[in-house]
């Protein structure tokens, strides 16, 4: 467990977080390689099922990164995404996986530091929470 390296899926909006990730790269900012980025045209494009499938297939944490409030390229995709994330958090609490494995974060394209810091924070948080119980249970299953 002490060597646990979480796998984290970050759905990043093309107009903000994805560009912020580029910015972080060009500024040579370090952030953990645990975070696997999936570029989406808008955070509002991320459906509940995408988040669930990521967890079902073994991600230990998931976050959706969208534009700052009022800055969505498609008007309110980020707001819609926030509501969906809140819904999924509740569902995950209901099935004892824990809503805290999923987060919504907002940033602008210029916030390379925020992108890097979010990746660090999320990795730390999930490391503390431990592996996704879905994954560990199925591994135990295989071992048996």
């Amino acid at each position, binding site marked *: 467990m002490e060597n646990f390296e979480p796998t984290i899926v970050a759905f990043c909006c093309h107009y903000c977080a994805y560009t912020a990730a580029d910015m972080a790269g060009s500024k040579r900012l370090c952030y953990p390689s645990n975070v696997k980025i999936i570029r989406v045209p808008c955070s509002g494009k991320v*459906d*509940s*099922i995408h988040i*669930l*499938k990521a*967890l*079902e297939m073994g991600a230990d944490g998931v976050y959706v990164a969208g534009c700052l409030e009022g800055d969505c390229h498609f008007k309110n995709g980020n707001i819609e995404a926030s509501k969906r994330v809140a819904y999924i958090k509740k*569902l995950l609490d*209901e*099935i*004892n*996986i824990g809503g805290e494995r999923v987060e919504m974060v907002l940033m602008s394209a210029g916030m390379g530091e925020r992108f890097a810091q979010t990746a660090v924070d999320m990795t730390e948080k999930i490391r503390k929470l431990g592996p996704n*119980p*879905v994954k560990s*249970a*199925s591994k*135990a*299953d295989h071992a048996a």
Partner: protein
Amino acid sequence: MITAERKPMEELIECLKPYHRILLVGCNECVTVCAAGGRKEVGILSSALQMAFKTEGKNLEVKEITLERQCDPEYVEELVTHIDQAEAVMSMACGCGVQEIARRFKDKPVYPAVNTTFMGASERQGVWAERCQGCGECVLGLTGGICPIARCSKQLLNGPCGGSTNGKCEVDPDIDCAWQLIWDRLKALGLEDRYEENIPAKDWRTGRGGGPRKIIREDLVK
């Protein structure tokens, strides 16, 4: 539409405990529109159930199918090719769909995944409200198109009661007083006189009072 809401996960997981392979059946009609049991919700529930089982070290195989209309035998028949592989069926349709599956597949346990709630309309995105109780003898023509049976907490046919305040019902300030709505509408239509007529006591035989109901259309019966 008929509206519904998903049951708590705990209840769903509990009733599926004895099984390893289930059919999870959605419906493309009302429950799709009210986001309770359409294809999308089937996918979400399927994923959540499988994860829930895995956290307890168990495995649940879920076959997802969403039928065009679960309350019609023609569409339910489509399950024939899948039913044998499943130990049980979980239906995300309204109570009508659940019962249609139970009727067709006599030896297969079927569980409802949603609580069927009411006949209603969409007030705005994500909000549905009750509009009709299917009383079997529509009074909307008398009441300006607003149903006092479905929308007045005391189903008064000669309202409003003394608890109407600022257009809201005494039961809950989130409920509009149906009789305020009716009155506003009668006024807008210049039909204030209609309010003066006492509506007589209702014959509930056309509703649930007469026992389970059936419609037979001789011109269509085969």
